């Protein structure tokens, strides 16, 4: 299986890059070949502190874990302890101490691709807590929307995964999973909620939003990602929030010579558009 994955992100309008609290893995574009891949996006909650760190820990952990139940058990518990150690190193004012005690929160969406037998595709599985979403597109058809499927389902009060075990006691009830099959040529779009909500609304209005997402950083791009997000915000077509997109293309073959190292070791940055073509 040959995969090309490229992340795009923008902080909430009015915030600086260092205040961005979503997370994505891989953090830069990668192309590689392997029998399985893991990808993830996460969205740290605005109202908690150190949510960005928690979101980053979560995507890294998911993509380097191989278990079917990554958010339970000892490995996850150690992740929570690591967050707590990281944020408690310095003495804090009373309000920061209270925020640490409450814990950080994040939505997470993780996708695993498995290679099948032969050249005809394979299976995929996804897991989600919260409102970060995945869409699978084949040709000009949306095959899957997960875990939310319509724009009305998004709210500002989702159930999220916490760094504080006390807040996760009912999390199993809010954990969603799905599986499906992929074929070479399929694309997966992993999105945090603001973008996902826009995508679903476009679909509901009979539009083809994947055409915009698939063109970023290619010769067909109309506007660079950040500029495009800014224009949606100006039109109030998207909620002002951190925005993250991870585009995963499953290709028929490598289309950049010399980049056939296996993932995740491959940290290769792809050349800018105009040099890198997309599979046709």
């Amino acid at each position: 299986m040959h995969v090309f994955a490229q992340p795009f992100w923008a902080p909430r309008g009015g915030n600086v890059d260092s205040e961005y609290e979503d997370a994505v893995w891989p953090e830069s574009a990668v192309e590689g070949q392997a029998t399985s891949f893991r990808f993830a996006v996460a969205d740290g909650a605005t109202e908690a502190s150190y949510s960005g760190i928690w979101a980053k820990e979560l995507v890294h952990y998911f993509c380097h874990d191989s278990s079917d139940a990554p958010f339970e058990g000892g490995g996850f518990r150690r992740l929570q302890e690591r967050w707590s150690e990281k944020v408690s190193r310095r003495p804090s004012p009373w309000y920061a101490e209270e925020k640490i005690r409450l814990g950080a929160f994040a939505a997470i969406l993780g996708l695993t691709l498995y290679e099948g037998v032969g050249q005809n595709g394979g299976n995929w599985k996804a897991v989600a807590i919260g409102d970060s979403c995945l869409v699978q597109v084949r040709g000009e058809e949306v095959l899957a929307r997960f875990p939310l499927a319509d724009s009305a389902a998004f709210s500002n009060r989702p159930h999220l995964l916490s760094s504080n075990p006390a807040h996760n006691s009912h999390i199993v009830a809010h954990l969603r999973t799905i599986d499906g099959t992929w074929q070479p040529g399929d694309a997966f779009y992993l999105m945090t909620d603001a973008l996902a909500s826009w995508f679903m609304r476009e679909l509901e209005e009979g539009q083809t939003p994947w055409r915009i997402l698939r063109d970023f950083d290619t010769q067909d791009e109309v506007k660079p990602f950040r500029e495009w997000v800014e224009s949606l915000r100006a039109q109030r077509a998207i909620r002002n929030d951190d925005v993250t997109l991870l585009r995963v293309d499953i290709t028929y073959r490598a289309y950049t010579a010399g980049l056939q190292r296996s993932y995740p070791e491959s940290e290769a940055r792809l050349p800018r558009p105009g040099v890198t073509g997309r599979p046709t």
Partner: protein
Amino acid sequence: MPYTAEISRANPSCFLFLIDQSGSMADPFGAGESSRRKADGVADAINRLLQNLVIKCAKEEGIRDYYHVGVIGYGAHVGPAFGGSLAGRELVPISEIGNMPARIEERIKKVDDGAGGLVDQPVRFPIWFDPVASGGTPMCQALGVAHHILQSWLSQHPACFPPIVINITDGEATDGDPSGPADAIRRLSSNDGEVLLFNVHLSSQRAVPIEFPDTAVGLPDQFAQLLFRMSSLLPAYMRSIAQQEGYRVSEATRGFVFNADIVAVIRFLDIGTRPSDLR
């Protein structure tokens, strides 16, 4: 649509608390079955409101100035009630409030240990106000001062999320009928909607606590009924959050509580994603 303006550092909103410091606040709370005075209830309510508002705006790098906050006391005097280095100031950015409590006490809090049990944990509890009880209840005058402060804020922040005024009192104004001044406050507006006026009634009456009612029927006395009528209807977005938080609300629900906790209002504020598992 009203009440949809984003609350941000570039476009902050405003909170104004009016606290009754009159002599009658020295009376016991809830028909004397407890030794707590109403003035203790007021001090506790305002300290917890400020604490929750600061925590809501706190991020790892410090407190973000999403709100400017004023506290007007009314009793023997009417005017800004902050002490210490904030004394005399009408509206203060929330970061300064968070960093300048009068003192910080240590209290023991029972917290969930994540394994089904509770453990005692020491927590730092900031105090801005101590109980005060002297003089009359010049509520009309306090509402007039609030009106003046808000007018000036709104002229400087015409696109802000509408300011919220929370009046904490035992309800018995001594300088006339507060309905008129309350109406005048509720008629003030930004481009995003009218100012919201909420009332907290702390009474000596033995009566069941009431939170966010949608009718005056069943309220225990005429003061409660008056404060209910003076209170704004909860806007649609707050009703929706209140519903998610488990309150029974209707379109007639008002921002009024009787002998009950108003801190829930802070949870109704929207500054971005709030986990529904965080209570």
